[in-house]
């Protein structure tokens, strides 16, 4: 799941630059689950904006909508009337949703209300922790289900560095050393062979440091089917 955190109100208001009619847009997907951008949080942001405007003596008109997801056109197409009636849209979706909104409603300022932070899991009451960085070459089969890319400070792929210390990372004593965790997990499974093998470096061009990535499922993409004959079906590819 994509995890995001709310931006300070001050930044949101600064970006709004005094616009009088604002559409606050929650998202019913990941940001609802991580308690940052669901309908309730959208209501609370709207409430903040109205109150802040009142304090400042510059009333604004704020409406709230929360589509099922902002990362699908079909859902955001339903917002047309509300978007057109507003001077600006403040979106509580992750950067994916904000960009798609901005693309669909080209002439409307679509402003982010959250910082999209990571892909992670619920790790305790009200807490989410990063687990995946989307490197595009998953090694979890070999690392005992612990991702060295996301969880090692250096994203090392060939074992712990010299900074590992009693299971903790040299960056901070609060951070577990991913490689220590990998070792423990593999030992528990009784198979340390991966640690003995040498691995090729990752192709970082496949990861977030590369260019924009696209996924095509040919079975539901007519265009891809036509290209399917040319041998390009169902693959992640760089454009």
């Amino acid at each position, binding site marked *: 799941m994509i995890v995001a955190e709310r931006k300070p109100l001050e930044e949101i208001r600064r970006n709004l630059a005094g616009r009088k009619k604002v559409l606050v847009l929650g998202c019913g997907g990941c940001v*609802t689950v991580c*308690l940052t951008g*669901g*309908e*309730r949080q959208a209501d609370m942001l709207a*409430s903040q904006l109205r*109150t*802040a405007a009142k304090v*400042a003596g510059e009333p604004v008109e704020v409406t709230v909508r929360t589509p099922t997801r902002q990362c699908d056109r079909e859902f955001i197409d339903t917002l047309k009337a509300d978007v057109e009636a507003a001077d600006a849209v403040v979106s509580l979706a992750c950067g994916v949703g904000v960009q798609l909104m901005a693309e669909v409603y080209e002439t409307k300022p679509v402003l982010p209300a959250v910082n999209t932070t990571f892909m992670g899991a619920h790790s305790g009451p009200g807490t989410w922790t990063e687990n995946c960085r989307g490197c595009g070459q998953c090694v979890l089969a070999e690392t005992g289900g612990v991702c060295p890319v996301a969880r090692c400070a250096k994203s090392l792929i060939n074992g712990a560095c010299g900074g590992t210390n009693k299971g903790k990372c040299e960056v901070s004593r609060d951070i577990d050393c991913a490689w220590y965790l990998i070792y423990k997990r593999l030992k528990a499974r009784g198979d340390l062979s991966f640690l003995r093998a040498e691995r090729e470096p990752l192709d970082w061009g496949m990861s977030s440091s590369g260019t924009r990535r696209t996924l095509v499922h040919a079975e539901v993409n007519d265009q891809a089917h036509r290209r399917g004959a040319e041998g390009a079906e169902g693959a992640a590819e760089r454009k």
Partner: protein
Amino acid sequence: MPGRQLTSEEYARLAGSDALIETEWAPCRAACPVHADVRAYLDLIARGRFREALDVIREVLPFPGACGRICHHPCEQECRRNDVDQPAAIRDLKRFVAERDYPEGQKFEKPLQERDKVAVVGAGPSGLTAALDLARLGYRPTVFDRGEAGGGLLRTAVPAYRLPRKVLAADVDAIVAQGVELRLNVEVGGAFQLDDLRSQGFKAVVIAVGLSKSRGLPIPGADAAGVELALPFLAAADSAGPGLAGKSVVVIGGGNVAVDVARTAVRLGAGRVQMACLENEKEQPAWSWERHEAAEEGVATLHRLGPKQVLVRDGRVAGAEFKAVTEVFDGNGRFNPKYDENRLTTLDCDVVVFAIGQEADLALVKGTDVKADERGRLVFDRSTSRTSAADVFACGEVVTGPGSAVEAVASGHRAARAVHQFLSGLPIDLGESLPPKIDKLAPATAQRLVKAARAEMPAVPAAERKANFGQFELGLSEAAAMKEARRCMSCASGPFVLTDKCAACLTCRRVCPFEIPEVKEIADISSALCQGCGICAAECPANAIVMAGYGPDAVRKSVDAALASLDPKGLRLVIFTCGHHAPAARWGGSDPARPAVSAKEVFLPSMSRLSAADIMYAFEAGAGGVIVLECESGTCRYPTVELRLRKRYEQARQLLIEAGVAPERLALHVGAADNQEAAFAAIALMAERVTRRAQGWAPRGQAAKPQTAEEKSK
């Protein structure tokens, strides 16, 4: 029982109506013969809104005073609190609101009555109920009774120590005040016949004559002086009283009437009172609590005795002889006593009272088109409440057999519906489709619930009460009643999940103090397990959980109403507090000690319902300050509310300060909700702090820690 689900669209259609809260019933309501909305009136009592509670009762039960004392309270038998500690004292609470003096008085409005005249024969609970229902529907009912006052057997057969006459009279007066004409001292069937009613223009007749004749037994000696029948005995005790000083009395029978007779005999001065019944202790039909009270007063109960003869000396009772009972009910559970004629017991006594059952006096139908069967019972169609004559209906014990007052009332309701359909030219259909009742509490849930001792009804000690006919149960005090009403668990008031909004985020599951929600594709919150705290509804990030009893807009509407009641020019404070635990009556509007600040309370069913968004809304809506008053630590009926509320308060506080609201405009006080002095101090403190700043909105400041009542008093 699976959780309840709706789409947002369906919810939008139903919001604000009773449809959601009526989807399922609490077991108390399902068990009540008249389906009184127990949960609703207990909640009103908890909030100190006693008169409104009484109105809820009166909608379906015109005898709140009488039933508040003598009802056999099946609601309490079914109360889900039985699985936690003890049932809520529903009957005692009914009595509390019924006997209270209201400053506004007991005003009743007479409905517009332009429809047909209907005659009701018999002014007992069923007849008066039927008449009242018909009056409310616009008919003109007249109730005929041969007695000198209304109330039927409640007046002549229920002893005054259980039901004071003036209490019953007040119930009857209220019925009359709502458009029922009462004609007393008229015997229908004597000089005045059933057909006379028809010729006088009554378009329908309801026979509600009850079971007014006591049965005797054709055993030797039954005609001796000193042999009495239960109903005349009880009626006489009520007026003059035969005087039984020092005498030994044997009551034959084991039912509730027999217990009434025995306890009445004690009060008439009998030296020794023994009840002899066929049944053993387990089989005996009288209510256990009444048997217990009788025993406290010195009544001895002898079991498995079948009356053989009354022993007579010089024409007067000298004793009673009994044969042993070997079996009361046969293999099919039918009443079919068997005796051992060789095992005899003799009880010496001066008086024998037969309390073995009643029968109807059907003189009024003799020679009419209203037929009785060969066993002397009215020919009656239960499905239409109709007798053999198309325009004559019947209700109450004459057709149901012996039962309790509230059952007679239920029967009266049915007869009134039948008459209404008949006179409207409709086919008679008394079928009712009632909402399903929720299941029993799961043991795991019961274990998590906060226990609370049931209010004890203060009573006159047995030694003292047995000397007179004074009411021996003294009634609950206001404080005890409100505390007791708070023990209601608000069953079936739980949530609906909006299927199109739920993101299956698991928040409900994670915050529920009872671990009730199951999340599969979406959340599934069992209405039988849910305790209705609403913590999940206030936390759900998708606004996908709506409570049946207090919807998502309820807080906002209350805030709007509160602000609208205050002068918009000055500082307006909104105070969020628990209506369930800190009722308006305790620290409300007109107390002279209240600070002269423009402040208004918003009462919530529990502070668990107050969300951070609600707090923020108050400012948006124009409040100059918000005070959150929490109850004393550990007093909430729901676990974890204190923690949740503090966190929501902190969240709202941060978001509001971020929006430029000065921190002194927000306060949380723990322990102040149910403490008038602390509540008033909280109001004064905020007013002082806010006005100390320059007028209007203050600049941003340092967030102050929320104060507790204790800190403040230092």
